[in-house]
């Protein structure tokens, strides 16, 4: 069947005819009675006819009238799935379908559309964000306004206004998240609304989308120049509009989030700078311009505007190094840390500054900006210098002390050697004529000399422990240290008939030979202070006490009163001066060695006659 509709109206220009059935297409230069119209009617006709397997065509003569012709086939065989409605489900995405439905529903009165839009789109919108965004819509055309509002209200809260002024008032009263406005409107048009919104602080960052019924590159440029975020030209599809609105809303959301994050880090930075009494600067190397800076004057004594301003304050000795760091940063990027002295331009006082800077590159990778922070570290520097000076003094004093100990003991040994040798020579010279008294006296002199020599030798050993110059500490196998000590003491062990019980020992942090000296001192003590009626029994074992190994040397000797446990580690300390030989240095030397490697020494005894345990701890070798 063919249906033909003819009119005697304004007609349609021939070049517009191919677009006639496109959605939202409005014929340009229409001289109709009103400007109303959405560009939907003919598109709808075409869709409906297509669904029925028909065709629609138009012919027209400008100024004379138009003729529309609809052809539809008879019967139902060309409508394959009429009953089940499946064809529709295959159509497109939910949003797309909704858009078409909305287009159709637009022709119904507002009140009857309640059923229309409760499906997928609502739940989609709800899942995307907790709160619905608020869109302000301005369009003077009631149909268009109603249509767009229906489309948008699925996802957003929509406030619809019929002109720019109304929209402006609404925007100020309750700022929306996005504004969608027609360009051509009475009272205040879209450009006017745009201008006013951009002028106010509260609304100047709002995303604004312009809608225009007329295509044309000029008006698009005009809109974007005026500060619109986007420009939608009718005809547009509902899907396109929704996509643009959503895109701009999420852009705005991201901008807001980024802005918030930026403000947060600015506040944090500000607090950090304040807490550390630092300030930040920013320098544009191309223009040699200090772009922004905290209160530079508080540090430099005057404001800085260029790198040169800064350089002028820097101490000439520190300037070349600092300058080359900055130059390299400018060339290669990265970061630097620089310490330098400055002379304040107001008071002339010198202060120490510490500066950290980083190069910021532009899209091409060139360093276009350098940012930095400066702290006044004068107090710290003074403290550091003082510490350094004290340290040097201490090192010097230590060296002098060692030197003194060495020289003193050397110079003490010399006359002693003379006394020793010449007493011998005297005795030999007198020979057999010597009275027994003379021989005895000479013997006392010899003994005195020997004892003095031992004392001096031990003092030398003790003084040398201070200075770890010979060998760096490393892993020391205590088993080897013990072997060494035992070989030195072999004769005495045999003489005393000592019973030695040794358990496996660990590897510790220290010097093997020095620890051998510790063992030697502890073992020789155990032998020396044995009971006269029992053979010495010495047991050596190690226990792992967590962060350190504890070595114990246990004997069955005369022991000591617990109150002496600390005292015996002092220099020249001897509990039994008359009965036992010795210099009283052995334990002091052991203590010094062990403490040098981060360990401790101590002694335990349950009392006199009850044996003793001498212990020392050292860190394990793997630390």
């Amino acid at each position, binding site marked *: 069947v063919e249906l033909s509709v003819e009119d005697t109206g304004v007609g349609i220009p021939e070049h517009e005819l191919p677009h006639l059935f496109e959605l939202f297409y409005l014929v340009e230069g229409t001289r109709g009675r009103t400007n109303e119209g959405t560009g939907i009617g003919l598109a709808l006709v075409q869709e409906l006819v297509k669904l029925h397997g028909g065709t629609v065509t138009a012919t027209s003569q400008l100024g004379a009238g138009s003729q529309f012709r609809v052809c539809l086939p008879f019967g139902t065989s060309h409508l394959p799935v009429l009953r089940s409605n499946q064809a529709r489900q295959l159509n497109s995405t939910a949003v797309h379908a909704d858009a078409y439905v909305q287009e159709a529903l637009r022709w119904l009165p507002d009140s009857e559309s309640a059923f229309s839009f409760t499906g997928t789109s609502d739940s989609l919108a709800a899942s995307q964000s907790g709160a619905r965004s608020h869109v302000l819509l301005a369009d003077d055309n009631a149909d268009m306004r109603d249509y767009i509002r229906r489309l948008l209200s699925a996802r957003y809260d929509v406030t619809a206004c019929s002109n720019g002024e109304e929209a402006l008032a609404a925007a100020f009263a309750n700022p929306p998240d996005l504004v969608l406005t027609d360009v051509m409107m009475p009272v205040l048009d879209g450009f006017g609304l745009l201008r006013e919104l951009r002028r106010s602080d509260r609304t100047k960052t709002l995303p604004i989308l312009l809608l225009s019924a007329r295509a044309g590159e000029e008006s698009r440029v005009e809109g974007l120049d005026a500060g619109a975020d986007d420009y939608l030209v009718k005809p547009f599809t509902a899907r396109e509009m929704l996509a643009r609105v959503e895109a701009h809303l999420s852009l705005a959301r991201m901008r807001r989030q980024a802005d918030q994050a930026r403000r947060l880090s600015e506040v944090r930075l500000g607090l950090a700078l304040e807490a550390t009494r630092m300030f930040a600067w920013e320098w544009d190397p191309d223009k040699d311009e200090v772009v922004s800076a905290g209160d530079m004057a508080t540090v430099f004594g005057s404001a800085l505007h260029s790198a040169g301003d800064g350089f002028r304050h820097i101490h000439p000795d520190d300037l070349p190094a600092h300058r080359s760091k900055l130059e390299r940063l400018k060339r290669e990027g990265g970061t630097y840390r620089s310490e330098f002295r400055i002379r304040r331009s107001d008071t002339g006082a010198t202060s120490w500054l510490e500066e950290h800077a980083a190069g910021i590159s532009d899209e091409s990778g060139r360093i276009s900006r350098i940012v930095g922070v400066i702290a006044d570290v004068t107090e710290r520097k003074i403290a550091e210098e003082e510490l350094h000076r004290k340290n040097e003094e201490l090192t010097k004093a230590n060296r002098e002390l060692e030197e003194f100990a060495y020289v003193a003991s050397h110079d003490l040994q010399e006359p002693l*050697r003379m006394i*020793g040798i010449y007493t*011998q020579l005297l005795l030999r010279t007198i020979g057999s004529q010597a009275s027994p008294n003379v021989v005895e006296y000479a013997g006392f002199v010899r003994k005195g000399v020997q004892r003095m020599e031992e004392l001096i030798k031990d003092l030398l050993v003790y003084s040398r422990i201070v200075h770890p110059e010979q060998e760096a500490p490393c892993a020391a196998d205590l088993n080897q240290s013990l072997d060494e000590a035992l070989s030195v003491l072999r004769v005495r062990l045999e003489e005393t008939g000592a019973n030695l019980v040794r358990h496996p020992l660990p590897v510790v942090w220290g010097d093997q030979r020095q620890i051998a000296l510790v063992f030697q001192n502890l073992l020789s003590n155990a032998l020396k202070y044995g009971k006269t009626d029992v053979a010495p029994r010495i047991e050596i074992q190690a226990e792992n006490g967590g962060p350190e190994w504890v070595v114990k040397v246990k004997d069955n000797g005369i022991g000591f009163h617990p109150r002496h446990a600390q005292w015996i580690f002092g220099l020249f300390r001897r509990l039994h001066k008359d009965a036992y030989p010795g210099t009283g240095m052995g334990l002091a030397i052991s203590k010094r060695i062990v403490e040098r490697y981060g360990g401790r020494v101590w002694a335990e005894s349950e009392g006199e006659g009850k044996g003793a345990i001498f212990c020392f701890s050292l860190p394990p070798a793997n630390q």
Partner: protein
Amino acid sequence: MTESVRIFVVEDNPADVFLVRQALQQEQLNFQLFLAEDGDAALSLLEQVGKGVPAPDVLLLDLNLPGVDGPELFQRVRQHPLCKDVPIVVFTSSDSPKDRAWTSDFQISHYFRKPSDYDEFMKLGGIIRSLIR
């Protein structure tokens, strides 16, 4: 009679010089001592070598002499054309690792640490004999 052995002794302690003589006498060496008691004397003795004083057969050098730095004296000895190959016996009471270290740079023949026992001291004679060609 064989030619006497010339020994330069740089030593400021006469008691030690006395013992050196005894040690050499016990070795029954026919020797001639050239004695310098301080650094200046040692340097001027060295200067006369080849100019009236013949080159020594052995040098016996103490380390801590008044007036001259030990290493400097050793250097001057080794730089002298007539002394550069003469055996040196270091003759000192020092047992410091430092002294042992620096003296070893001068091709020394023996490091004799002055003992406090008479018989030990007398062994010096045998050491000197062994160094004479």
